[in-house]
């Protein structure tokens, strides 16, 4: 699996997922809980806006000085005895990881949750080499067991599944015989996975933030799987997006504090682990060898453009948890491992408009995402910018929008036609109107009203009302 998770068209995906009542209920419930927890955590801090502003200035500073901090980081990783590989493309990154795995004769690989390794499709490459790749985050483990079902949320990837479905997957794949109680399911996964951790050759992790001053990488988890992945196998490979970096531990504190509150409403998650190089001399646990793979894969093309601020993202999913569109269509509709508002901005930048030009339209531009973002990415403005680029530079607005705009242009450009049209509108639309709303409009209105209502034209035109008003009429 790479960033793109299916071949379906956006509209077909939406139609299909809108029928999934469990998924829609689960998403709505999860949004409520996560949103409330984030707001409570923010309120408790008192000066949340100041924290957001500081988060924003840190992320901006790092992006503006990315070459310096990547240099400093990697110097320090090397000083600690680690190896570094800069990968311009997904293929380069995968080839390096494969080479390291083969040189260690690695057969069994345990992985902690990492969006960037999903993005580059690393698992598939390693499986083709004959390796057994085991995802160890509980949500990812469930998805992997279920025939590689793609994630639908960047923090809680198996959000779309209910516990009965999970029990059935466990029964089929793990010979599980107990109930669908989450505690029993989790305990079973713990016992199965513990053996895998103890016998794995290689551990692969992502990286929440790398710390330039010390060459450290940090991992933020609740389950403890990232600790096991980085404590037990002999070789550790960490894959990071090139922008996930902070200057010093002081900024790490700020961004972790923003991340855990925004993602799950916790002051800190159960485990924040800062790892510097391989084990030190005398250490009896930790990896003997450490490799850091720094991935570009389209990110540098975003630098210096009007979309640069999207690289401030710390992957907390707060925007996803408030998005009214995500709430109805679910994560899989976006066809990308990055769903929701952040996905609708980032996916077309990394994957191109050919496959993802519909995503910037999967938004009401209500700006709830922008308000929720802990590092103040102007997400709804970036979505709007995408639409401008799609229409103006790429010339590929959706066809119905083109037709509607053409018709409006024709009508509005000529005074007699506009006058006649606006006079007739109310009468013509009457068959489609109910309670002043149109919900099954004809012609160019169809595509609009399939997914939302359109206000019916007023019976009295503004111009007539104004004339009447000037004459001293009551005018309503």
């Amino acid at each position, binding site marked *: 699996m790479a960033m793109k998770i299916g071949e379906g068209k956006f509209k077909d995906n939406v139609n299909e997922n809108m029928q999934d009542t469990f998924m829609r209920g689960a998403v709505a419930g999860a949004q409520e809980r996560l949103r409330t927890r984030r707001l409570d955590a923010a309120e408790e801090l008192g000066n949340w806006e100041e924290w957001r502003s500081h988060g924003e200035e840190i992320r901006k500073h790092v992006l503006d000085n990315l070459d310096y901090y990547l240099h400093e980081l990697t110097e320090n990783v090397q000083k600690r005895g680690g190896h570094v590989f800069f990968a311009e493309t997904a293929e380069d990154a995968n080839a390096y990881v494969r080479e390291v795995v083969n040189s260690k004769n690695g057969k069994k690989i345990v992985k902690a949750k990492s969006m960037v390794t999903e993005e580059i499709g690393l698992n598939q490459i390693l499986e083709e080499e004959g390796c057994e790749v085991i995802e160890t985050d509980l949500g990812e483990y469930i998805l992997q067991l279920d025939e590689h079902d793609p994630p639908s949320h960047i923090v809680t990837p198996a959000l779309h599944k209910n516990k009965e479905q999970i029990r059935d997957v466990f029964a089929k794949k793990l010979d599980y015989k107990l109930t669908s109680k989450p505690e029993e399911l989790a305990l079973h996964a713990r016992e199965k996975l513990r053996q895998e951790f103890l016998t794995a050759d290689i551990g692969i992790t992502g990286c929440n933030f790398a710390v330039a001053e010390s060459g450290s990488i940090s991992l933020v988890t609740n389950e403890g799987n990232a600790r096991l992945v980085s404590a037990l196998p002999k070789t550790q490979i960490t894959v990071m997006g090139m922008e996930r970096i902070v200057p010093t531990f002081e900024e790490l*504190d700020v961004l972790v504090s923003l991340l855990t509150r925004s993602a799950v409403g916790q002051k800190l998650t159960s485990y924040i682990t800062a790892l510097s190089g391989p084990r030190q001399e005398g250490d009896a646990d930790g990896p003997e060898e450490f490799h850091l793979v720094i991935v570009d894969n389209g990110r540098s093309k975003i630098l210096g453009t009007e979309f640069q601020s999207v690289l401030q993202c710390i992957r907390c999913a707060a925007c996803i948890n408030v998005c009214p569109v995500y709430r109805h269509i679910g994560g899989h509709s976006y066809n990308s491992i990055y769903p929701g508002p952040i996905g609708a901005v980032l996916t077309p930048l990394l994957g191109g408009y050919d496959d993802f030009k519909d995503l910037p339209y999967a938004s009401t531009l209500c700006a709830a995402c922008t308000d929720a973002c802990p590092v103040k990415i102007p997400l709804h403005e970036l979505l709007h910018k995408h639409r401008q680029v799609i229409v103006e530079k790429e010339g590929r607005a959706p066809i119905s929008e083109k037709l509607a705009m053409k018709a409006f242009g024709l009508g509005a450009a000529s005074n007699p036609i506009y006058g006649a049209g606006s006079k007739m509108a109310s009468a013509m639309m009457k068959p489609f109107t109910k309670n002043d709303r149109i919900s099954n409009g004809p012609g160019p209105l169809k595509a609009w009203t399939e997914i939302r209502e359109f206000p019916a034209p007023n019976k009295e035109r503004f111009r007539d009302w104004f004339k009447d008003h000037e004459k001293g009429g009551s005018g309503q």
Partner: protein
Amino acid sequence: MIHHRDSFLTNVAAQLGRSRNTSVKPERNWKFRPQDKTLSGKTPDELMTVLRDQCRLIHTELIETTSDKLETVLESTVNLYGGGPISLWRDPRFDEFGLGELIRETWPARSVEVNEWDSFRGKANIAEAERANIGITFSDMTLAESGTVVLFSSSDKGRSVSLLPHKYIAIIPKSTIVPRMTQAAQEISRRVQSGETIPSCINFITGPSNSADIEMNLVVGVHGPVKAAYIVVEDR
């Protein structure tokens, strides 16, 4: 070894519209510093209250005691958690806080298996921690706001002790309590800046492991310990 750095950084700089800078440290003129104000000026007792309240939220039992009662309290907490095998750091603080006799005499005499981390025995340490019912460590720094113990690894202080056993007990000297992660971050950064080699692993541990990946139901105890207790002790 560092591969492909030059071309990569040159490209990054070009995208940013300037030539590459790897030598002049960028000025960090922050306009905001909210972290300095959070829980600042609290007395140790006030921070203790913050820690106490937070432990209720993170499914962690908090026990407060004095150094002369620590031995009894630790013994009864271990009993409550079902006894041995026990996995421990090799840490002079166990003796400083009067726990040497319990560890080396009392428990073994009662056939409670106790394994102290010993780097010379290599992998055997991991197997012992994996077999252990309880792992016990001291806290190197303690964050009141989040209820977090900070553990600095070393050859005597294995990562596995707080990770592989079924339950975890942290002994927290009261003097290690600071307001929040900010103070720990400043301390680590100070060590880095002064040229010290920081530990290969620094863990910020906040209660037992947990997950909400199944229908958003909180399950306490996933890959790490399923239960955690903190024993706060007044310093000698």
